[in-house]
C-alpha cells in the first residue's frame, strides 16, 4: 500500500491531479469510508484493504464537476461501471486520473458477524499486501479466526476477472477469487414453479424499508431526478403503500438498469435488510445473453448495448433462442 500512497503523493505534488478519491480509515477496523483527499498530509488517513468494497466510480459524477483532475482508485469490477458512466455521458474521462488498483476479493462484515462474531475491535489479515488467507478478528469476547474466502462478498465469488477495463496506470496485484458460476443462482430460480418464485421474492421484498440505498449506490441509477422522487407522479413514495408496490420499485428499477447493469453487486452489499437484489440483475443479464448474444456492460465505453441498438435480427416477443 505504501507504493500506492507514494505514487498518489507524487501525482498530487507534480500537479497532475488536484485531489484523490479513495478510502479513509475507519475506527473499527472494518468501516472505511469514501473520501476526497486534498493534500499529501491528508493521505496519512488513507487505507486500501479488504474492506474497501465501495465502488467509487459513481462518486466521479460529482468529481467530474470539480476543478482539475481527480485521481480515482478503481478495482477491476469498478472499471466496468466507470466505462458505462462514460458511455452515458455522466462522467468526464478527462477529469479522471484512474489508478487501477489490484484486488484480492472484498470482505463483507455481515458474513463475519453471521458466524456469531461480535464486539469486534480490530481485524487483521485484510491488508492488500497480505496473502489474504485468514482473518484474525479481535473482539471483546476473545480472538476469532475466519477464512478470508468465507468472509468475501458474494460478488467476489463470481468475479468477472482481474483485468481493469479502463485506467491510466495499474498498481498492486490481484488474486483470482472466482469459485462459482454467477448464473447458477438464476438457474435455481428458473427451476422453481411460478408460485415458489413469487413466494421467494415476496418474502425477500417484504423486508424492504424503501431507504433507496440500492438505488443511490447504483452506478447505473444516475438520473438527475428519479421518477420515485418526483412529486409529479403517484410513484413518488417514501413508503410502500401495499405489498404490490413493494415489489414494483425493485422491478421497475431492475428494468431500468437492464442492459446497463455491470453486476457490480453494490445493491446487495448496501441493503440494510440483506435482500439479494443482484438476483434481478443477473436474471436480466442472463436473458440478454441468451437473446442477443453474450454482452458485458461496461467492458468498453463505446459499444452500444443490445437494448439500445436495434437490428433486424433482434429477437421477436415470444421467440426463444
Amino acid at each position, binding site marked *: 500500500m505504501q507504493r500506492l500512497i507514494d505514487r498518489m503523493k507524487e501525482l498530487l505534488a507534480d500537479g497532475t491531479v488536484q485531489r484523490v478519491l479513495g478510502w479513509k480509515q475507519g*475506527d473499527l477496523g472494518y468501516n472505511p*469510508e469514501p*473520501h476526497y483527499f486534498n493534500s499529501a498530509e491528508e493521505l496519512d488517513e488513507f487505507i486500501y484493504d479488504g474492506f474497501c468494497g465501495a465502488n467509487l466510480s459513481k462518486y466521479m459524477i460529482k468529481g467530474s464537476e470539480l476543478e482539475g483532475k481527480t485521481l480515482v482508485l478503481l478495482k477491476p469490477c469498478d472499471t466496468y461501471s466507470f466505462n458505462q458512466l462514460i458511455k452515458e455521458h455522466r462522467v468526464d474521462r478527462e477529469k479522471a486520473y484512474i489508478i487501477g488498483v489490484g484486488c484480492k476479493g472484498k470482505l463483507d462484515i455481515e458474513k463475519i458477524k453471521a458466524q456469531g462474531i461480535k464486539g469486534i475491535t480490530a481485524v487483521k489479515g485484510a491488508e492488500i499486501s497480505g496473502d489474504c488467507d485468514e482473518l484474525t478478528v479481535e473482539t471483546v*469476547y476473545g480472538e476469532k479466526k475466519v477464512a478470508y474466502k468465507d468472509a468475501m462478498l458474494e460478488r467476489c465469488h463470481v468475479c468477472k476477472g482481474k483485468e481493469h477495463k479502463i485506467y491510466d496506470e495499474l498498481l498492486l496485484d490481484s488474486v483470482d477469487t472466482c469459485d462459482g458460476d454467477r448464473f447458477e443462482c438464476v438457474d435455481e430460480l428458473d427451476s422453481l414453479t411460478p408460485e415458489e418464485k413469487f413466494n421467494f421474492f415476496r418474502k425477500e421484498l417484504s423486508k424492504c424499508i424503501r431507504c433507496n440505498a440500492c438505488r443511490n*449506490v447504483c452506478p447505473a441509477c444516475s438520473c438527475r431526478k428519479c421518477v420515485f*422522487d418526483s412529486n409529479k407522479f403517484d410513484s413518488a413514495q417514501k413508503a410502500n403503500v401495499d405489498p404490490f408496490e413493494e415489489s414494483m420499485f425493485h422491478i421497475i428499477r431492475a428494468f431500468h438498469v437492464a442492459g446497463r447493469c455491470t453486476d457490480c453487486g453494490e445493491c446487495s452489499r*448496501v441493503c440494510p*435488510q440483506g435482500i439479494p437484489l443482484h438476483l434481478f440483475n443477473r436474471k436480466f443479464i442472463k436473458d440478454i445473453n441468451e437473446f442477443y448474444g453474450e454482452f458485458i456492460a461496461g467492458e468498453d465505453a463505446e459499444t452500444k448495448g443490445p437494448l439500445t441498438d436495434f437490428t433486424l435480427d433482434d429477437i421477436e416477443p415470444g421467440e426463444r433462442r
Partner: protein
Amino acid sequence: MKKFLKSDLNALLDIISEKERIYLPVSEAGQTNYAIYNENSKVDLDTLKTVKSAKEVFFPQSETLYTAFMDGKKIRIAQEELEKEEFVLFGVKACDVRGIEVLDKVFLSEPVDSFYKARRDHGVIVALACGEPEESCFCKAFGIDCAEPEGDVALYDCGDYYFWDVKTEKGTALTEKCASVLSDAEEAPVKEKQEEIRKIVSLLPYMNISLDSWKGATTDEKFNSDVWEELYKPCLACGTCTFVCPTCQCYDIKDYKTKNGVQRYRCWDSCMYSDFTMMAHGNNRTSQLQRFRQRFMHKLVYFPANNDGMFSCVGCGRCVDKCPAAANIIKVIKAFEKEGNR
C-alpha cells in the same frame, strides 16, 4: 423477582397471545425485525439489534389517517380507528426503550398525536437486558444502562432461565396473567448478570465517547462549522440511517388516490431525501450538506434545546452498522471533538 424456564418461552407467549397481540423480534428471510407473534414465528431474542427499531410498533412506517370517498354527490370522510386493544411489545432493548421516551416528547406533547397516544396507552413493554453488547453500541454515552433496561417488565437472560423484574403497574397486570409459567426467584443471578454486562460495556470502543461539547451547544457554533463540508461527502443521500433509527420521527403526509376517493396516509420521511420539508414556496434545504447537517443538528442540538437537554440519539448504533458509506453520528461527534482540540 420472578423467572421462567427458557423452554417455557413459547408457553408464556401462547398465554399472552390468547388475548393480546405480541410484537417481538422474529427472524424472516435471514433478518430479525419486530413482527406479530403467531405459532409459526421464528422468535429470535438472541440477535442484539433488530434491523428496524421498536419504534414502528407505536409509529408505523406508513399508516392511513383517514379515507375520503365520494358517496353519490357527497364526500364522506372516514377516520381511521384508533388502537383500542391491549398489546405487548416483547424483548425490547434499553436503547429502544429510551427511543420510545424520545418519541413521547414529540407525540405526547401538545398537540397530542391521537394515533400514537392510543398505541402507547394500550402497549405494555417487556424489555430485555443486552446479553452481549457490540462494538457499534454507545448507549452509555447517553446515560442508558443496557444491563438494567426501563420498561414495564425487565427480562434478564440467565442460564436456563429468563428472570422477570416487574417495574410498573402495567407490568404487574401482565405478570398476573402469566402467573402459571412464572415462579419466584432470587435476585443474585440478575445482579451477577448485570455485572457481567457492565464489564463488557467498559471494553467497547464507543461507550465512553464524550458528548460534552454538545451539552448546551448553541446552534451557531455547530451549524457554521467547516467540518460538515468534509463529513457529508461520502453520504449517498439514502434514508437508511433515518429508517433504522429509533428516534427519527419526521413524517410526510400524502394522498393515495383510490378508485373513488383519496386515502390520506402518513409515512416516515427522511431529512436525507431531496424533497424533505418541501413546501409551496420551495425547499429550504437545497444541498445534501444541508440535509446531512440537519440530521445531526436535530439530534444533538435542536432536540435537546427544546427537551431539557435530552439528546434524540440513544446510541443503539444501527446507523453505524447500516450506513452504506460508513458515515454516521460517531464520526460526526469525533470530527467535532478533533476540531475542538485543534
